[in-house]
C-alpha cells in the first residue's frame, strides 16, 4: 500500500512537471494553424449580424464570422477551414492567452487596458461601434440635434446614461430620460411608443430592432456619441501572425477603396493600376512576405468580397447605416482607411 502510494506520488509529480518543462516550445501561430489544417477563431455566436447560427447552412454567419473566414481564405484559400469557438465575454481573453484560439473576433472593444494589461494586440478596427440612437423612421429625426426635447429610453446606472447626459449638456439640448433597470423593459417601452428614442450601442440597437414588433418602422441614426472600436485581437509575441491578421483586414478595405469586388476581381487582375496589381498579387511578393501565397488578398475578395460587400451582406439588413457613419470609407468621410500596399 505504502509503496504503491509512493509510486503514485512520483507519477503525479512527473505528470505535473514534465509538461511544465516543455512550455515555450513550438513555432509561430501561422505554423501551428497550417499544421492543424484549420484556423480556430474565437467568436460571439449570439449577436445578430455579427455572429449567429444559420440553420439553413448549419454554420455560423455574420460580420465577425466573415473575418474569420477571410483569415482562413488568406491561409488556406478555403473559407470553411475554420473552427469556431463561441466564447463568453468573461472567457475570451483567457482563451486567447491560453492559446485555445488563434484569433479573437468577437465584437471586442479596443481599450488601453485590454491592449496593454491583457497583453493582447488589436488589429485594425473593422466596425466602429458606439452609443447611438434608434428612432421611428417617420419621426423626422435624422441627427442628434433633432432630438431636442425628446423623451429617451435609457438603461439606469450605466455609462450609457452618463454619456447621454454629457452629450446633451454639451450640445445644449434638453431631453426627458425614461430610465429602466432592465433591458427588456426598456425595449418594450420604446416599442410601445413611450419614448421617442432608444439609446444604446449601435450594434445592440440593431439587435433590439430585429425583435421589435415592426422593425421596418425604426431606423438607427448614423451619428455616435461614444467610442467602441471593434476588431480582431491576437496574442502578444507573434508579430508575423499579427501582421497577417492586420493586413487581412486592410486587404478588404483597400479593395473597396480601389473598386475591387467579388464580381470584378478576375478582370481586375489585368488592371494597369499598380496599386491594384500589388493588392491582388500580380506584382510584388506581398503574400510571400507574410508567409502566404501571393494571391491571398485576391482569394479573400473573390470568396468574401471587399469591406463594403461584407458590411452590406451582414449589417445593412439590420438597419445599421453605413453612409454618414464612421464605418464609411475615409474618402466618404468615415474612418475605414487602409495604409497603402507598397
Amino acid at each position, binding site marked *: 500500500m505504502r509503496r504503491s*502510494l509512493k509510486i503514485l506520488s512520483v507519477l503525479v509529480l512527473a505528470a505535473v512537471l514534465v*509538461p*511544465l518543462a*516543455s*512550455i*515555450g*516550445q*513550438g513555432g509561430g501561430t501561422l505554423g*501551428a494553424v497550417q499544421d492543424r489544417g484549420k484556423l480556430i477563431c474565437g467568436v460571439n*455566436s*449570439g*449577436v*445578430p*449580424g455579427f*455572429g*449567429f*447560427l*444559420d*440553420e*439553413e447552412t*448549419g*454554420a*455560423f*454567419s455574420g460580420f465577425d464570422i466573415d473575418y474569420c473566414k477571410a483569415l482562413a481564405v488568406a491561409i488556406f484559400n478555403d473559407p470553411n477551414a475554420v*473552427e469556431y*469557438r*463561441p*466564447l*463568453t465575454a468573461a*472567457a475570451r481573453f*483567457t*482563451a486567447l*492567452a*491560453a*492559446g*485555445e484560439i488563434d484569433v479573437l473576433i468577437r465584437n471586442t472593444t479596443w481599450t488601453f487596458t485590454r491592449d496593454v494589461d491583457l497583453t493582447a494586440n488589436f488589429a485594425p478596427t473593422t466596425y466602429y461601434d458606439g452609443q447611438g440612437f434608434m428612432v421611428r423612421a417617420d419621426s423626422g429625426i435624422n441627427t442628434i440635434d433633432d432630438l431636442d426635447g425628446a423623451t429617451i429610453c435609457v438603461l439606469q446606472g450605466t455609462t450609457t446614461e452618463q454619456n447621454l447626459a454629457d452629450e446633451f449638456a454639451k450640445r445644449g439640448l434638453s431631453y426627458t430620460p425614461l430610465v429602466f433597470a432592465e433591458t427588456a423593459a426598456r425595449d418594450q417601452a420604446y416599442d410601445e411608443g413611450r419614448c421617442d428614442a432608444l439609446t444604446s450601442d449601435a450594434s445592440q440597437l440593431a*439587435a433590439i430592432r*430585429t*425583435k421589435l414588433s415592426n*422593425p421596418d418602422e425604426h431606423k438607427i441614426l448614423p451619428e455616435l456619441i461614444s467610442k467602441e472600436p471593434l476588431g480582431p485581437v491576437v496574442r502578444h509575441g507573434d508579430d508575423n501572425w499579427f501582421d497577417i491578421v492586420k493586413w487581412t483586414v486592410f486587404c478588404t478595405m483597400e479593395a473597396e477603396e480601389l473598386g475591387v469586388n467579388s464580381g470584378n476581381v478576375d478582370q481586375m487582375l489585368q488592371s494597369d493600376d499598380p496599386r491594384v496589381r500589388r493588392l491582388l498579387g500580380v506584382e510584388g511578393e506581398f503574400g510571400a512576405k507574410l508567409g502566404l501565397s501571393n494571391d491571398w488578398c485576391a482569394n479573400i475578395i473573390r470568396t468574401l468580397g471587399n469591406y463594403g460587400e461584407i458590411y452590406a451582406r451582414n449589417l445593412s*439588413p*439590420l438597419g445599421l447605416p453605413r453612409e454618414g457613419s464612421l464605418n464609411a470609407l475615409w474618402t466618404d468621410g468615415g474612418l475605414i482607411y487602409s495604409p497603402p500596399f507598397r
Partner: protein
Amino acid sequence: MTDARADAGAQSYEGEVLPPPTVRVGPLRWLRENLFSSWWNSLLTVGALALLYVVGKGVLPWALAEADWAVIPASLKLLLVGFYPEGELWRVWTVLFLVLGLLGLSAGLWGKLLREAAVIVGSALLVLLGVLLLADWGERLRVGGLALTLFGGMGLGWLLRLRVAPPRQRPWKRVLILCWFFLPVAVVLLLGGIPGSGLLAGVPRTQWGGLLLTFALAVVSIVLCFPLGVLLALGRQSSLPVIRWAAILYIEVIRGVPLVTVLFMASLMLPLFLPSGWRVDNIIRAITAFTLFTAAYIAENVRGGLQAIPKGQIEAAQALGLGPVLTTFLVVLPQALRAVIPANVGQFISLFKDTSLVFIVPLMDFLGIALDIIENPKWGGPAREMLLFVALVYWFFTYFMSHMSRRLERALGVGER
C-alpha cells in the same frame, strides 16, 4: 361504477409472491378521495383549476395561433446533432437503432420497469419526431423504423419470456447484459469513428453538438461519477487517516467551489499549464469537470446511506466471518445505495441540466445552439417558441429520470423495509 371492486383482494395465491392487490376505484370515487376529500382540499382544487384556466387561456391561443413554430423544424438537425457532418448522420441513426433495439429486447425479457421505460420512450419518439417535427417522409420512415425496432424487440423479448422456461432464459439475459456492457464502446466507435479508416472515418469531436452532445456529456459523466462517488464515500469512512483525509479534502474543496469555476478551470486555465502542443479534447475536459464535481456530491449522498446502516448489520456480517471488503460490498453498500436512490437521481438530474453550462468551455450543447439560432435576424425574435421547445425537451428527460427512479424505489422497496 363508484364502488371499489370488492373481490380485488381475493386473487389466487399460487406459490409466487404476488404484489399487494391494487384496489380499483371508479372515477367519481377517485375524484372525491383525491380532490374533494375535505373542504380545504376542495378549495385548493377549485383554486388550482382557476389558475390553470387563467394560464391556459393566455398560453393556448398563443401557442396554437400566434406562435411561429417554423424555427424548430427548420433547425432540428442543428438542435439534435450540432455540426455532425450530413453524410455521417447514418451513424447517429444506427446508434439509435442499437439502443432502442436493446431496450426493447430487455424490456420484453425483464418486464415491468424496463417495459414502462420503453413505452414512454417509444411513444414520445413517435409523437415528438414522427408527428410534430419532421416534414421529410424519409425521416418519418426512419422514426417509424425506430419505433418498430423498439416495440418489435419488446415483442420478441416477451415471446422469449413466455415460451422459454426460466432457467433457459438465463443465457439470453446474459447475452443481453453483455450487449449493454459493450454498447458504450460501440457507440463511441460509431459516433467518433476511427481516424484513418474508410467507412468509419473519424468525426472530430468539435463537430458534436446539440442534444447529442448534451447526452454524451450527461451519460458519460453520470456513469463515471457514480463509482468515483462511492469510492470517495468509502474513503471518507476509511480508518486509514491518509485516505480519509484525502477524501475529505477532495469532497470539501469541490463542494466549496461553484461548478462554473471548475468548468472554467478545466477549459481555460488548464491549457495555461500544459505545453503549447498538448491539446486535451474540449469534450473530455468538460466530462472530467462534471465527473469530478458530481462525484463529490454523490459521495456525500452515499455517506448518508452508509451512516444509516445500523451497526448491528456490520457486526452480524463480521460474526458470520465476512472480511471488511465482503462486508462492505455484500452487506453495507447494497442497503446504503438503495436508501440514497432519490438523492442520487436528484444529483443526476441536476447534472443533466448543468451540462448546459458548457457554453463556458466552449461547446455547443442543445441550449447553446438554440440560443445562437434565435439570434439570426431572419427570425425576428421567435425566442419564446425556441426556448419553450428547449424547456420541454429538458423537462421530458428529467421527468423521465425522476419517474423511473420512483418506480425503481418502489420495486426495490425503499422506505418500506
